[in-house]
């Protein structure tokens, strides 16, 4: 990817330039292999996991592990493991598809993704040849289960403040680790723990710790709000003896491992929650059709239709973002020679290019699932509050997604901070664009050349304006606060909110434009989804931008900004009562989420 000949979209550049619909990857572009992988995963989850969901939630002894071994036989644990270590080494789209279909299995999805993601990938990307040979075949087959521990009782988001120490023995043969790690998924039955500790109390480093090493134990199970079927414990390191060759990566470079692995975790989390959202919508549709009140199925009521439509729109938009990003990552990784000794480094660099998009997906999709499960409980009414029905569990299981893999607050800060940092480094022209825009906007109204045409002409214009608003607000904020901007978390988060809406609007529009909106015969359902989402998203963009502008300007300056905002916010409002009823009717007719 260093070669200038290979072309790829720079991460975050969607904000500053237009993308052609033909350039993006969408679920409609899956190949036969993708469909088969999705099907085999779905069959496994439907037949082997979902029937046991109650026993899994009760943490029935040995059940989750035996199911992991079973899924290992099909190869689903080794998608990201290179072929030379017994894995499949498939593309990220396949990996996301598996995550999506496993995603509907609640607690077990967390067991699965902790093992295949944060539990296995650190060794894939940072392990020595010996470490890979020793651990990857076992992890890829499910013979061994892995767990990952970054947090500590006193350090979560501030991971580098960890207090666990590692000291090299005088003979240089082993490290002695002391400390307590927190929230280890799979800890109860894991054979391996990827652990972080500070060598000599300062050099943050990673280690592969095995269950059987002296001084390694786990605390009792945490009693959690949701995902009760996943094992979560503390890892207790009491003079734990870890062979020196189990140091993972370089001394003092543990943060590189931690942050890179989180990037991967974030886009997979996005795929996983979309799978869960689709399942919950299907349940809600089926229930709303069966439940009668006032002599008719509640699915016929406008307020229920509105909920179903909103749930489906957000899920469809989330899915569009997830696979657009998968396509970007797969495209950039195509140029990585898998046999090269630099392969891991280049792969991570490729994924890191889209760190902004990964964070966007993490935040938006986890919030989508929370919205979906909340509204599903509401549709079920009193029954939604009963453990007899599936939505109560879905509601509890969803909540963690806004917390782990970097809280949504941390990710919101990351999105705008990364955009600004890349601009300062000259990788993205955000600040130049802001300057340019300021001149244009203040001088005269938009000249009108290059106006979008076609079925989505007005939506494309709205998105272009939302991009201008993002550029204007971030430029204004950067100018006002300079290097103190990182202290203004509320402003940064709102900038990110606008950026996220832009990525979401554009992703769904391009997807539909590519597949369902040929001008001679547009598919009304999908066109409605785009129009409705863009209409609603613009209203949110307006709120966020007013929040930012009122915080950074006052008096005449503020009035000037608001005049510009008003001009950029000019669009015909859509009758979303009609479009949402139509979208809900499509779900009701199909009896499930099938978009």
């Amino acid at each position, binding site marked *: 990817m260093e070669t200038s000949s290979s072309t790829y979209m720079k991460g975050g550049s969607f904000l500053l330039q237009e993308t052609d619909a033909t350039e993006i990857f969408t679920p409609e572009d899956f190949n*036969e*292999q993708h469909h088969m992988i999705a099907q*085999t995963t779905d069959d496994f989850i439907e037949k082997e996991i979902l029937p046991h969901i109650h026993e899994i939630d009760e943490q029935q002894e040995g059940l989750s592990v035996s199911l992991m071994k079973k899924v290992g036989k*099909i*190869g*689903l644990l080794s*998608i990201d493991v290179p072929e030379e270590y017994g894995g*499949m080494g498939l593309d990220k789209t396949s990996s996301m598809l598996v995550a999506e279909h496993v995603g509907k299995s609640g607690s077990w999805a967390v067991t699965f993704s902790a093992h295949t993601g944060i539990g296995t990938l650190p060794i894939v990307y940072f392990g020595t040849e010996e470490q890979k040979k020793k651990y990857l075949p076992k992890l890829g087959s499910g013979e061994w289960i892995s767990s990952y521990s970054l947090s500590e009782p006193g350090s979560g988001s501030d991971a580098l403040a960890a207090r666990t120490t590692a000291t090299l023995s005088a003979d240089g043969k082993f490290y002695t680790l002391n400390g307590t790690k927190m929230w280890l998924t799979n800890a109860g039955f894991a054979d391996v723990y990827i652990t972080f500790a500070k060598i000599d109390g300062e050099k943050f480093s990673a280690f592969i710790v095995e269950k059987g090493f002296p001084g390694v134990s786990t605390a009792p199970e945490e009693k959690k709000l949701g995902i009760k079927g996943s094992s979560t414990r503390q890892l207790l390191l009491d003079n734990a003896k870890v062979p020196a060759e189990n140091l993972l990566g370089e001394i003092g470079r543990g943060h590189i491992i931690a942050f890179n692995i989180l990037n991967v975790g974030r886009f997979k989390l996005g795929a996983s929650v979309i799978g869960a959202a689709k399942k919950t919508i299907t349940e809600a549709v089926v229930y709303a059709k069966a439940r009668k009140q006032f002599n008719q199925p509640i699915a016929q009521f406008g307020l229920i239709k509105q909920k179903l439509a909103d749930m489906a729109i957000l899920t469809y938009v989330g899915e569009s973002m997830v696979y657009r990003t998968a396509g970007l990552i797969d495209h950039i990784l195509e140029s990585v020679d898998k046999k090269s000794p630099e392969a891991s480094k280049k792969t991570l660099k490729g994924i890191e290019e889209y760190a902004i998009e990964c964070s966007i997906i993490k935040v938006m999709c986890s919030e989508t699932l929370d919205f979906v499960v909340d509204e599903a409980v509401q549709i079920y009414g009193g029954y939604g509050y009963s453990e007899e029905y599936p939505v109560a569990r879905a509601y509890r299981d969803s909540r963690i997604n806004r917390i782990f893999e970097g809280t949504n607050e941390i990710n919101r800060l990351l999105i705008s901070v990364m955009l600004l940092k890349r601009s300062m480094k000259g990788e993205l022209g955000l600040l130049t664009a802001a300057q340019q825009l300021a001149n244009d906007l203040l001088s005269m109204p938009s000249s009108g050349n290059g106006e979008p045409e076609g079925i989505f002409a007005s939506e494309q214009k709205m998105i272009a304006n939302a991009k201008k608003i993002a550029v204007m607000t971030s430029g204004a904020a950067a100018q006002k606060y300079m290097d103190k901007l990182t202290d203004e978390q509320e402003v940064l988060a709102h900038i990110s909110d606008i950026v996220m809406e832009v990525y979401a609007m554009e992703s769904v529009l391009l997807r539909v434009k590519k597949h369902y909106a040929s001008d001679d015969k547009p598919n009304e359902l999908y066109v409605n989804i785009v129009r409705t989402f863009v209409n609603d998203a613009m209203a949110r963009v307006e709120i966020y931008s007013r929040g930012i502008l009122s915080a950074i300007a006052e008096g005449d300056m503020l009035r000037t900004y608001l005049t510009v905002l008003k001009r950029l916010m000019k669009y015909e409002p859509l009758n979303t009562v009609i479009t949402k009823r139509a979208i809900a009717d499509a779900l009701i007719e199909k009896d499930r989420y099938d978009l």
Partner: protein
Amino acid sequence: MKILVFVNHVPDTETKVKVGADGKLIDPTGVNFMLNPYDELAVEEALRTREKFTGEVVVASLGGDSNKETLRKSLAMGCDKAVLLKDASVRDSFAVAGALADYAKEYGAEIIFFGKQSIDYDGAQVGGLVAEMLGLPSVSVVVKLEIKDGNIVAEREIEGGHEIVHTKLPAVIIAQKGLNDPRYPSLKGIMDAKRKPIEEKTIAAVESRVEVVEMRKPAAKAQGKIIGTDASAAAELVRLLHEEAKVI
């Protein structure tokens, strides 16, 4: 051993089907298709038979290009070769069986597996017809199968119990639920399937002996009616059952 398994490509059980405009066939638009679940048992048994005796498993299907999806899945489960008997016409069970029997003969199968029935038209005839056409013994609704030295011991379901029958190879075995637990196509299987061939054969047209005249969905069930809550309602119930429902 030369093992042959026939599979059908049927609408997904979760798909809502509609009757097409001609009133004789379903409208395939928007319908997902899948490997017929009973045929999946047949594929699994064919693979187990190969694992025991070595040899090859050929999977064949009659239909259009879309059947390749089902053939590809069978290959991903582990079949060695696939054959698409290409035919876009509408056939009754007899005409289907004729085409399959021709291919089975040409291939020289030593054992042929079928699923009990296709879950679309539920004819449950093709396996037996093929056996008759080839002059081979057939055992239907098989839930357990043992083959040793060319002898077959098969357990089949009958009303209220099981029946054990003996026969010899070559034979036709028709699978019932319970025979085995079909494997999931593994990722490796899926990747390997891409490299396995699907041979296409054009087959001769034949006339069907049975013609579909009309296809329709059952009438929607009417709302239940409560006539009364005590014995006094009995007379009215009898009257309604006799005069309206006309069942007594």
